[in-house]
């Protein structure tokens, strides 16, 4: 006999009461929440809050570092084009600093105190085509800078005019030298330009008297002899700073060539036209001659520019400044005996150091302001995302009822 469920003697009221009874609140034999508190670790929520939160800033910092590294990778080349400065400790090899930055050709104001602690400034080098420049600086007073295009060139020259067969580089160097006898050094420097090789003194002056005497000379020497002459100039005394720059004028010369070719073609066409139109009206003939004249003037001007550029490539400029070596006799220091004076000195040094530090901070902060703003925004955004992720991860999932 089949019995339908509907025929059972179970009414809705009984079922509801039975179901309610099946989940009726029942006090457990012990207070379970106490065990839970102990299991969760004594301090309960306060500790769990800490546990939950410690990794949020950690994750944010990690993400910020990743963003910073990424940003640095993106920003450094741009920053590098603007300028950079490295402070080298005494005896530090500049090539190490530069190689570490993997900044080959374009840069470089390097301030250091090689050897005896003198300060040397090497000015920024403009790009030298595609050439890769490797710099290094020896620790002694006889500085050596090598560089350019797969080969090493000594004596402070980034190149000798033969960087690459198809590149035209204009080089310019400046040097400051301290010497005992400024006049004698001036005479020796002027004698370094070889008339036989077409070298010459572009300008020169001796000013002042005694310890204030100063000599300024601009030498034009063959590009191939630049390193040699620089070395000889270093021998005049104690070099205090050197500055090297080079300018790739290959594109400019190529443009000049193309423009000259074009102008010559125009000139030839005008001449041809003049030949064919001998019976033209006077007005047209005069206009044609005028245009011919202008075309010729342009050709000559361009050729002069090309010749000048070629001369600049062929002859490098060395701007030499000679000044008297200051007396090495130590200045008598005022007697300091009292505690107050020492304190005053310490205060002075401290405030000066603080001022320098603040100046550095402001300078650095301003230079990197865009990067800092970018990083700050990224950290903020990442922080929000991490917080959301944390909330999501801590959300109790919906029961899986199948």
């Amino acid at each position, binding site marked *: *006999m*089949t*019995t*339908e*469920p*509907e*025929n*059972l*003697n*179970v009414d809705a009221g*009984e*079922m*509801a009461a*039975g*179901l*309610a009874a*099946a*989940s*009726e*609140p*029942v*006090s*457990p*034999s012990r*207070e*379970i*929440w*106490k*065990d*839970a*508190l*102990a*299991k*969760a670790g*004594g*301090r*309960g*929520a*306060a500790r*769990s*809050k800490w*546990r*939950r*939160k410690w990794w949020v800033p950690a994750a944010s910092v990690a993400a910020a570092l990743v963003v910073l590294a990424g940003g640095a990778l993106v920003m450094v080349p741009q920053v590098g084009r603007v300028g950079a400065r490295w402070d080298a400790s005494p005896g530090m090899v500049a090539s190490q600093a530069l190689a570490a930055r993997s900044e080959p050709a374009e840069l470089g104001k390097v301030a250091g105190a090689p050897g005896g602690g003198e300060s040397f400034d090497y000015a920024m080098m403009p790009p030298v085509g595609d050439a890769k420049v490797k710099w290094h600086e020896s620790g002694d007073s006889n500085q050596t800078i090598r560089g350019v295009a797969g080969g090493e060139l000594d004596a402070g020259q980034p190149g000798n005019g033969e960087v690459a067969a198809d590149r035209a580089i204009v080089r310019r160097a400046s040097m400051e030298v301290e010497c005992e006898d400024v006049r004698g050094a001036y005479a020796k420097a002027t004698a370094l330009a070889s008339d036989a090789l077409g070298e010459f003194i572009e300008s020169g002056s001796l000013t002042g008297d005694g310890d204030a005497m100063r000599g300024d000379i601009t030498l034009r020497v063959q590009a191939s002899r630049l390193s040699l002459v620089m070395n000889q100039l270093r021998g005049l005394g104690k070099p205090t700073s050197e500055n090297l720059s080079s300018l790739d004028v290959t594109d400019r010369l190529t443009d000049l060539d193309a423009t000259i070719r074009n102008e010559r073609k125009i000139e030839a066409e005008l001449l041809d036209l003049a030949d064919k139109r001998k019976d033209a009206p006077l007005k047209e003939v005069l206009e044609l001659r005028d245009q011919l004249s202008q075309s010729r003037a342009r050709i000559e001007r361009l050729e002069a520019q090309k010749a000048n550029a070629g001369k600049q490539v062929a002859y490098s400029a060395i701007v030499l400044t000679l000044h008297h070596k200051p007396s090495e006799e130590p200045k008598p220091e005022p007697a300091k005996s009292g505690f107050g004076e020492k304190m005053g000195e310490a205060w002075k040094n401290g405030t000066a150091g603080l001022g320098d530090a603040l100046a550095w901070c402001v300078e650095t902060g301003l230079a990197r302001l865009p990067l800092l703003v970018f990083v700050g925004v990224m950290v903020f955004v990442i922080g929000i995302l991490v917080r959301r992720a*944390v*909330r999501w991860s*801590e959300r*109790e*999932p*919906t*029961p*899986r*009822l*199948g």
Partner: protein
Amino acid sequence: MTTMPVSVGSQKPPVAEMQVGDAARDAALMKRFAAGDQQAFAMLARGYEAYLFGLARGVLGRRDDLAQEAVQETWVRVIRGAGAFRGESSFKTWVYRILVNRCLDISEREARQKRMRIGVVEAGGAGYGVEESDARAEGLAGAIERLTVAQRVVVLLCYHRGLTHAQAAEVLGLPLGTLKSRLNAGLEALRGMMGEGGEKGE
């Protein structure tokens, strides 16, 4: 052993007197607990524990040991999540949801262990062990135990004292209509089982 700075009397208050479900009160207590006030947690726990234990007991086939485990794990989750609780949702539905999840986990674990014990891989079905175990009880109680655990959760939550259908739907993350249709299916299944029981009885 950790000493709790909470004074707990051995005399438990009667279940009927407990007040649960005041969302604002619960949120305030949780906020206090998150700030380190364990007395607030004691008040919350005392209010809810009997209800949670009763429901867990029903879902887990009247096994007190499993029900205690489920409630304990629920409180642990509440304690660890207290810092993240911002009162955007009701504490009540949150704690019930945690409990249901723990009950499902325990039920699944028990089924797995049972299968390993008897060495039989049961084919088909949800495979929950508690639902099919010890279905010796007669009448409605026996029929409830023979429901699948999913059906049992829906039916018991809907008839659980202190929860409305809307709250039960929120606990399970289901739309109210879906909950009601599942409830009807569960009740039909119950009636069917009781019918079978009655037939056998005759």
